[in-house]
């Protein structure tokens, strides 16, 4: 299921590959093919490799090979797509994805606060109202539960709405509609009505936006049956996930980080010592930590899981480090026999996010914390 979404993402991206912005300036044309071609990940069964088995830590000299993880070795070396890529920022990537889908399917429409002539609070819908009209890029009054409800009704009548929350925290107001209707009506109607709605918005800790605008709500949404949830972390996967979510027949919740560092490059190389699972903004912290770890002689493997509901356990494989307790329990359940060490879960402190920049930084998992956790695990 998550594989289907990833494969759809991949297929959709292969026609217009993007580069990620940053010092690596990589062409990730190979990634789609590798994701699409992936059957069972070769990460899964690694019982001989000895994860974190202490003093036998094998060193592998330094360079991170910036390809998507979970590739088959031959796919990663295949040539990139024939079409040239172009650089985009994340919001531009989201916009490109949205624009393409709106051009392709007249049923796709956008609704949210300030999405119309203002172009969106984060400029994701900039220019779209001029192109598609006021009705298809609809400005709504301030009532999240209600415009989400409106999106549900429109979806049940055959449209494919994209509901933009100005901040995922505001979608707490929409939680009733999302959990009681979005995820549910397809089921309770006996399959008579589908709700192909996409609910998207930025979330998580940004840059001093205050406690109310820094909520991390993934776990709340993960407990809603019938909902799909994805988190993008690079312009590349943002565009693909946006398109895949719009085309999906299920209700989708698409999170994006409020604040991303640049220079993340591709995912890490397959590693032998430890698997680090991450998503959204944390990807960049993890990549930095991974660099440090490699320099210290460790061999970490980084996976950006992207799909938060359902989890892509296929890709994830064995021993892991992860952020949310939910994934941890799923992994323990599935892969207990393959774990050589207890799973360590790093996440922000259980406090409202403070405003002062220094304090805020301390609530977010920093690369140093990741490095230390890996070191502790591998002792």
């Amino acid at each position: 299921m998550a594989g289907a979404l990833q494969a759809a993402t991949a297929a959709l991206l292969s026609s217009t590959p993007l580069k990620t912005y940053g010092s690596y300036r990589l062409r990730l044309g190979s990634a789609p093919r590798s994701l699409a071609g992936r059957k069972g990940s070769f990460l899964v069964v690694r019982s001989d490799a000895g994860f974190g088995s202490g003093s036998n830590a094998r060193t592998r000299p330094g360079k991170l090979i910036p390809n998507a993880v979970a590739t088959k070795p031959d796919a990663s070396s295949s040539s990139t797509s024939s079409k040239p890529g172009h650089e985009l920022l994340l919001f531009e990537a989201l916009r490109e994805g949205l624009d393409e889908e709106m051009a392709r399917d007249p049923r796709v429409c956008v609704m949210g606060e300030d999405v119309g002539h203002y172009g969106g609070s984060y400029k994701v819908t900039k220019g779209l109202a001029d192109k598609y009209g006021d009705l298809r890029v609809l400005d709504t009054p301030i009532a999240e539960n209600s415009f989400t409800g409106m999106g549900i009704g429109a979806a049940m009548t055959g449209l494919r709405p994209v509901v933009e929350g100005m901040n995922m925290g505001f979608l707490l107001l929409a939680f009733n509609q999302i959990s009681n209707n979005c995820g549910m009506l397809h089921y309770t109607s006996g399959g008579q009505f589908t709700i192909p709605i996409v609910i998207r918005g930025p979330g998580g800790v940004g840059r001093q936006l205050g406690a109310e605008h820094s909520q991390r709500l993934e776990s709340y949404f993960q407990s809603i049956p019938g909902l799909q949830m994805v988190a993008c972390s690079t312009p590349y996967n943002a565009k693909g996930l946006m398109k895949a979510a719009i085309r999906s027949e299920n209700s989708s919740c698409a999170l994006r980080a409020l604040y991303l560092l640049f220079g993340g490059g591709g995912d890490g190389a397959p590693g032998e010592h430890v698997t680090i699972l991450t998503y959204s903004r944390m990807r960049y912290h993890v990549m930095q930590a991974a660099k440090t770890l490699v320099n210290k002689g460790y061999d970490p493997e980084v996976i950006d899981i992207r799909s938060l509901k359902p989890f892509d356990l296929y890709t994830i494989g064995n021993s892991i480090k992860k952020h949310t307790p939910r994934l941890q329990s799923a992994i323990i359940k599935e892969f207990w026999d393959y774990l050589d060490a207890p799973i360590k879960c790093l996440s922000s402190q259980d406090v409202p996010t403070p405003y002062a920049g220094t304090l805020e930084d301390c609530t977010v998992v920093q690369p140093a914390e990741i490095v230390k956790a890996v070191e502790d695990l591998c002792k």
Partner: protein
Amino acid sequence: MAPSCGTGNHPSSLIPRLFIRRLGSIKAGESLSQECDDSNFQVLDFPGGKVNFSSELRFLSESPLERISCYRVLDDYGQIISASNFQQVRKEIALKMYSDMVTLQTMDTIFYEAQRQGRISFYVTTIGEEAINIASAAALSIDDIVIPQYREPGVLLWRGFTLQEFANHNFGNKYDSGKGRQMPVHYGCNKLNYFTVSSTIATQIPHAVGVAFALKMDKKNACAITYFGDGGTSEGDFHAALNFAAVMEVPVIFFCRNNGWAISTPTTEQFRSDGAVIRGQAYGIRSIRVDGNDALAVYNAVHAAREMAISECRPILVEALTYRAGHHSTSDDSTKYRPLDEIEHWRTARDPVSRYRKWIEGNGWWNDEVELNLRSNVRKELLQAIQAAEKTEKPALAELFTDVYDQVPSNLREQEKLLRETIKEHPGDYPPDVPV
């Protein structure tokens, strides 16, 4: 039929209407000029348009001098009120309306009894609101999309949902269109354009706005109609949905069944406004109050509302005053919070079905014998339907896991596998009538 919403082929042709209103409000930077039309009245430009000035310190009263009056066609004895402004209903429609009201009444009685006998788990009656259900449905076309609360099965009945289908749903058997996944009375039928009932109060109101929005986009010659009670008007969703519908100019009828009670909360404790109708103007919505126990009045009001909604592409609010003559549901005993004689009064003297009956009898279209036959036939058909529904198999186990997503994902497949294995190993712990 009135032309459908919007002009031209491209959605952008709708831009002018919305755009102009928007421009009107972005004059902030400009003139704060004061024009003197008259030495006593000054007019000023603020965002939102011109307003007259007044030097009088005067507050608007919290309630109007008089309550908004109630539109009525038939008096309490089933006679047309002479000054009444209404549209004549064709005989076949008029008779179908009565027949369906009787069917709804009978259905309610028998299903209620079935619940009391333990044959179904739960039921909600529509007693006292038969005219609202049937007459409003009769005034709509099959293309109009209905987004109900839960006390409007009569609309489904009018559209052709059979007694057997009602029974199948309430028994949750394999022929239920909802596949046995919901409580009784949570009907839904895609092909009859009736959205599946969702228990949450008032969540359907913004859904209806979304439906109307879709109809407007597709330029359909149809409207959306949503029903809710007096209690539902307190929810935030009610407020926002009405506001949205007005701003977005979509063809939706908001039908409030003001039946006096939200479980045990009377309207005096629900709001302090003059019912729901008075609020329409606050949102910029044309509204009407109608006698909900007068089938002809309801028919006329909805008919007119539909015309306006579609031809002018605007929302309309209809408040039907009525009385919830039954309990809230089978889990309620309303004699605990309201006097028995009040309930009896509304069940008898103010019954909408017998009032309408007097009118059709007065036209020479009905008599006692036909009445007896109808009631006995409906009752017989219902009992047979119930018996058949009770005997029918429940939905198969696989249906527990389908329709959560468009395709069954691997985690659910595993869960199904585990469940099947468990049932196989411990059959005694599971109900025998679920087909595996």
